[in-house]
């Protein structure tokens, strides 16, 4: 009986184990392995030495983190009120679906759509001409890069926040009002702290991918913003320096781990949320 259950458990583990081995552990190991080889396929630590001694790479790292931060902050500022508003609506499942809908469209297609919108003769410039400001250079600016990246990330932030709001018992809001709290005080002291896990999940889902957005930096940002993602792509596809590309990859992975730890679900002093 015991062996049977054990064998069964093993059986169910096979797909997950394969997936884990082939698509998580093996690539990580390969990147780590590659990062210790130079262009001549000799074992070396010089990639890491280069990375941490070169101003270009450090600036690039800072750039990546800074833009990812900007994107995350803007996404958060838009997503929390949106999720809150959606949650109060009558047909909220329908409105939520509309928010999710754009995520089903390929990111490349959306990027090309924005090239059209932001171009010299695009709708955005037509509008600016109409209100008398005149056409501006919108495409290939840092602002347009942040704008489009924020647009793409918003659904991934709204969903976890919406779910957190959904899990929040209305009794807490009633209790807060009953004790004399105004709407804003209730939000500040009860609703926001209790939905913070949703915000943290949203930050993880947005900040980490934003560190390595290379397609948008090129298509929308015009390669003016060089992020770590761009650098990795250049090293693997253009300079063919796989070792250096892998080193940057390792740095990115470490950065992700740090973000995960910072936004992880620590137990708040008052007990578990929800």
């Amino acid at each position, binding site marked *: 009986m015991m062996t049977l259950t054990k064998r069964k458990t093993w059986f169910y583990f096979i797909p997950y184990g394969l997936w884990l081995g082939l698509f998580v552990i093996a690539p990580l190991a390969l990147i780590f392995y590659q990062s210790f080889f130079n262009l001549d396929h000799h074992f070396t630590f010089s990639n890491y030495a280069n990375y941490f001694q070169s101003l270009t790479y450090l600036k690039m790292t800072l750039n990546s983190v800074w833009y990812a931060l900007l994107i995350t902050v803007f996404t958060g500022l838009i997503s929390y009120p949106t999720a809150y508003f959606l949650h109060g609506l009558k047909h909220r499942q329908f409105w939520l679906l509309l928010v999710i809908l754009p995520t089903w469209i390929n990111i490349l297609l959306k990027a090309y759509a924005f090239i059209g919108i932001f171009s010299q003769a695009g709708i955005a410039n037509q509008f600016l001409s109409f209100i008398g400001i005149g056409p501006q250079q919108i495409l290939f600016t840092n602002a347009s890069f942040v704008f489009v990246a924020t647009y793409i990330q918003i659904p991934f932030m709204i969903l976890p926040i919406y779910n957190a709001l959904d899990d929040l*018992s209305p*009794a*807490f809001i*009633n*209790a*807060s*009002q*009953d*004790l*004399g*709290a*105004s709407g804003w*005080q209730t939000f500040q*002291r*009860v609703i926001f*702290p*209790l939905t913070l896990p949703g915000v943290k999940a949203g930050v993880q889902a947005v900040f980490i991918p934003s560190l390595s957005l290379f397609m948008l930096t090129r298509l929308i940002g015009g390669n003016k913003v060089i992020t770590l993602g761009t650098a990795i792509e250049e090293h693997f596809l253009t300079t063919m320096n796989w070792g250096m590309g892998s080193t940057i990859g390792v740095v990115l992975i470490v950065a992700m781990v740090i973000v995960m730890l910072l936004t992880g679900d620590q137990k*708040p*002093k*008052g*007990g*578990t*949320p*929800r």
Partner: protein
Amino acid sequence: MTEPIVELEQVTKSYGTHTVLKDISITLEPGKFYTLLGPSGCGKTTILRTISGFTTVTSGNVLFKGKRINDVPANKRNVNTVFQDYALFPHMTVAENVAFGLTLKKMPKDQIDERVNQALRLVQLADFGDRAIDELSGGQQQRIAIARAIVMQPQVLLLDEPLSALDAKLRREMQYELRDLQQRLGITFLFVTHDQEEALAMSDEIFVMNQGEVLQSGSPVDIYDEPINHFVADFIGESNILPGKMMGDYQVAFGGHQFECADAGIPVNEPVEIVIRPEDLNLTEPEHAKLKVTIDTQLFRGDYYEISATDRLGNDWLIHSVNPAEDGETIGITFRPQDLHVMRYDEKEEEFDARLETYEGTEDDDLDET
């Protein structure tokens, strides 16, 4: 009479075509323990929410100390609620929970600490301030919820089935504590429950509700002894309810005989219902009996036997007796005239009270001597 603290005047609440409160008028006086008693879905929690401000009424007035508060939002009302599931904030400690309302008032910190400690002492959890909410048992959470409400020093405390999540023993303990707390604080408690025992044990006055209406209000003894109709008699305590006919003042017929009773003011020959509480029935020899019944079954309940019997017309009788009977035995039962309570069909509370006025007081005294 003291000035009422809370009044509902002809309050009606509807959701679309569904009416949950029908023309409710109740008055709460300061310093009393009131209970709204009724089955689930009867509207008792809705009444609480109209007073706390979480529900707006469709028509009628909600008054607080004589002032209309229909449009005053919940956070501006001087009443506090103990919620059914406590609703303690899980991201705060016990002390932070209790202090919540006071910190909103921007009260100095030492004053807050003092009042929080005082409230925690009052619910006998003085050393629990630094605990997390999920470290508390259900009974402790219950007390913290009470502390969080009373620290605000409300003039009316609303309690929404606060004991329903506790086990039977703890519930009995909390009944004593709540009653004691109410008397020490001297404020008005409005307690919502579907448990008639709870209501009878704690209240100064009970409002019995069903389907959005207050059927009867009065002291626990009044309601127990003189239920207005079948529903109230059945809902409160155990009872034998039999169809009968009024034969004149203080004379009623049921079970094939005519008996002396304590009720009057009902037209002769009017069909009525008779209520006799099982503990008011005594077993006796058949020849001394007012009625003869055949014992069906009996259950030993510890302090009494619960005997189920049938009379010759087929009416079921429930008898509480300290002595056992024998199954299948034909036995006599007796009762006193004042143990009978006559209920008219469809009598409203005002009519009932008015009718009682006409003969009670004078008759009560000499009936009690028999």
